[in-house]
């Protein structure tokens, strides 16, 4: 019989009404994830992106989620309080349909890690830098089946595989493999 276990769920609450569109979240995300922390910043590398259409009063921060190799078959439009959003506006995927959530130089996908990098931060830095409280952070405990725990993979392994898969999708598996082989040779 499977046991129950508590799982910590980390939540970023996003209050669109409070967003002032300053993009500090993008800036600090990219700075924190620079190799040597804060040594550079570049919002295009950020794992949070502002969908910003000021005159339509659309201010929508979106976090990078999973990579996807193919875009959706169709698109939907949402109208919320009279404002028209594209379905993609809400989507977290690093996807061929758009530039967001890809490293600008390599095209590799980006994914929010809740700033659990080394050293782990008290809260994700986008939240910390959002003095408007459009982004707030919450940790809650949830009961889950024990089994799920076992399914957790080694995160580094998973990340690497995701990147290699993205490379293969972008350049073709052969080219990616050849490049890898060349790199190995140089080593």
């Amino acid at each position, binding site marked *: 019989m499977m046991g129950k276990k508590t799982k910590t769920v980390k939540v970023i609450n996003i209050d669109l009404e409070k967003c002032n569109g300053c993009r500090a979240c993008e800036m600090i995300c990219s700075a924190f994830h*620079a190799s040597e922390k804060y040594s550079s910043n570049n919002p295009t590398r950020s794992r949070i992106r502002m969908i910003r259409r000021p*005159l339509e009063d659309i201010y929508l921060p979106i976090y990078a989620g999973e990579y996807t190799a193919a875009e959706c078959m169709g698109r939907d439009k949402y109208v919320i309080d009279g404002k028209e959003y594209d379905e993609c506006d809400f989507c977290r995927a690093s996807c061929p349909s758009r530039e967001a959530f890809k490293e600008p130089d390599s095209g590799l996908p980006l994914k929010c890690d809740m700033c659990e990098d080394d050293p782990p931060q008290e809260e994700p830095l986008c939240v910390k830098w959002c003095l408007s409280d459009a982004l707030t952070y919450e940790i809650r405990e949830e009961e889950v089946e024990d089994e799920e725990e076992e399914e957790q993979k080694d995160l580094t392994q998973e990340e690497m595989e995701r990147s290699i898969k993205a490379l293969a999708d972008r350049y073709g598996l052969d080219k990616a493999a050849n490049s890898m082989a060349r790199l190995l040779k140089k080593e």
Partner: protein
Amino acid sequence: MRYAETGYNLEIDLSSGNIEKVQTDPALTELHLGGLGTNARILWDRVPPETDPLAPENLLIFGTGLLAGTPAPGANRTIVTTYSPQTLLMAYSMMGGFFAPELKYAGYDKVIFSGRSPELVYIWINNDKVEIKDASHLQGKGVVETEELIKQELEDQDAQVASIGLAGENNVYYASVEHARSSASRAGIGAVMGSKNLKAVAVRGTKDLNIARPEKFIELCNEVLDYIQWRADNPVQHVPPILAGLGSPQEMAIHDEAWHTTAFSWGNARYRRKEFWTEEVEDEWFRVQDGAVQRLISCYNCPMKCGAIIAYPTLELSKYMMKCYSKLTYVMGAMADNLEFGFRIAGLAQGYGVDSYTAPQVMAFAIELYENGILTDEDLPDFPADNEGRFFYLLEKIVRREGIGDVLANGVYWAARQIGGGAEAYDSNTIKKHEQIPIKLGMLNPVFFLMHSTGEKINITQIEGQLPQAPFPEKEDREEFVKNWFQAPSENIKDFFVKWEPRGEYAFPYFPDFQTACELVEWQETMHYIDDTTGICAGLSSFPIKPPYHIHNLPTLISAGTGLDIDKDELWNKIIKRNRCLLRAINTRRGLRRKDDRPPEDHWKKRFPEHEAKLLDEYYKFKGWNSEGIPTRETLRSLDLDHVGEDLEKRGIYDDGQKDEDS
């Protein structure tokens, strides 16, 4: 590797269409930092003083602040520099928003425009790819529409656009450059852009911007954020609500306008309406503002919300972004009473791209001339009877340079002289040919006298800051104020504040002593000069009382960002003094002299000509300038600007000064 800056400028010759990416000399960064400092250096080196501001030979420089785009909160400003068609001196208006960071991410510290395009064009800077694009379809379009059309055309919602409206295209001497919720408004920079046939600049960048000492830099940024939060909970006491917090005065968030409406002058800087702000007005204005402000918004990487999206059913321009005090300038200029008029005309005027400071004053001036028979129905055919109608009428004439609008488009100073017939007497509020803040006060304020007189950013709000504008009546309150006033540069300044009284021995005009008055002015001006080189917004630094950035942490921040080692002394007494003297020299070379360092005659009711002359003498000495207000050769030499002194000497500029002194 270069830190905080990219190390490259983009040079665009609009006459030939030649575009070059040019590596900059790191030695110039060490000498002048960036932003205003290096902009001024380029203007000095490359544009001869006899250049007509609207001629192709004039340069138009979009310079990013040295720290713009770095994690430093509020570091986002673009300093636009050129010679002004209105003042004929150096203009260096600046704008916040998102333009400067984007330009840095595209890989450039500045874009330098020379020449004149044969046709109306806009520029598309997309990282290393730079194109000059046809803008004939954008001719006459408002700035909000222009931005939108360009983004659609480029299929890039993340592009940042700076553009001019009809006023800039028609070379109105107070045409602005508009961008998102911001604008570089003062002194006719938009006219220079128009003279170059440049409708807009669009930029998109996806490159990294580097920091030299990341750990230290981010630690300082975090301290700044913490202090901003602390200040939000701890407003300064004993000052009007609009001045108690950080940022630009919070005109969009706060509706209490008792201070502006009762302390500032209405009309052509004529009348104070001390009884204006009644409960009834307050209720009505609250209702209008509440209905008009859709969302409070910010510039890049800044938690302050000084701007707003404005949407109101009666607006001529259905939606736009507003900042600060333009909701009031037209209302007060037109003696209009109703705030709705302010939101309506400000949006329209912004679309045309005119400075919301100067434009209403020019219109109020025209109405005065009309009421006094100097302008007639012949000059103003079908002139409406009501002031609101008249303002709309004049705005349309001015931005098109139509009829009398062609004269009024040159601003109050030039228009008064062109109209003649006694119109000069109605030029009551200009300094250095530029419209000033409409304030008329009682007792001469020696500190403000010096700032009004000598400031070369041409407007007081861009020079003053950090010091409460009036003494607190109670000594205990003053003592309390200085307890946590760590931003003050010296004990002397704190002592001054504790002693400063509304009346008696420790009151204006003979208090404080000359030395302290000079120190107060130099401190306030130095802080603005630092901001103008770093691109940090004055609203978090030089302008508000008790700001998060100040003279004690800025040297460390600049050092950590750039990798240079700059202490307080080097920053203040070398770099900023160098920039200040270079600017003075640029303007000296264009004819600025002591006679121009003068506030309007009626700025204060009580004037003290002898004391004022002595104040100016002492301040010039304090700055290392001669009695004509020209930096001496010795001063310039000590600041590594000997070539500047040599040039002034060769032109016989020092002899001029001498002659005046002898006579």
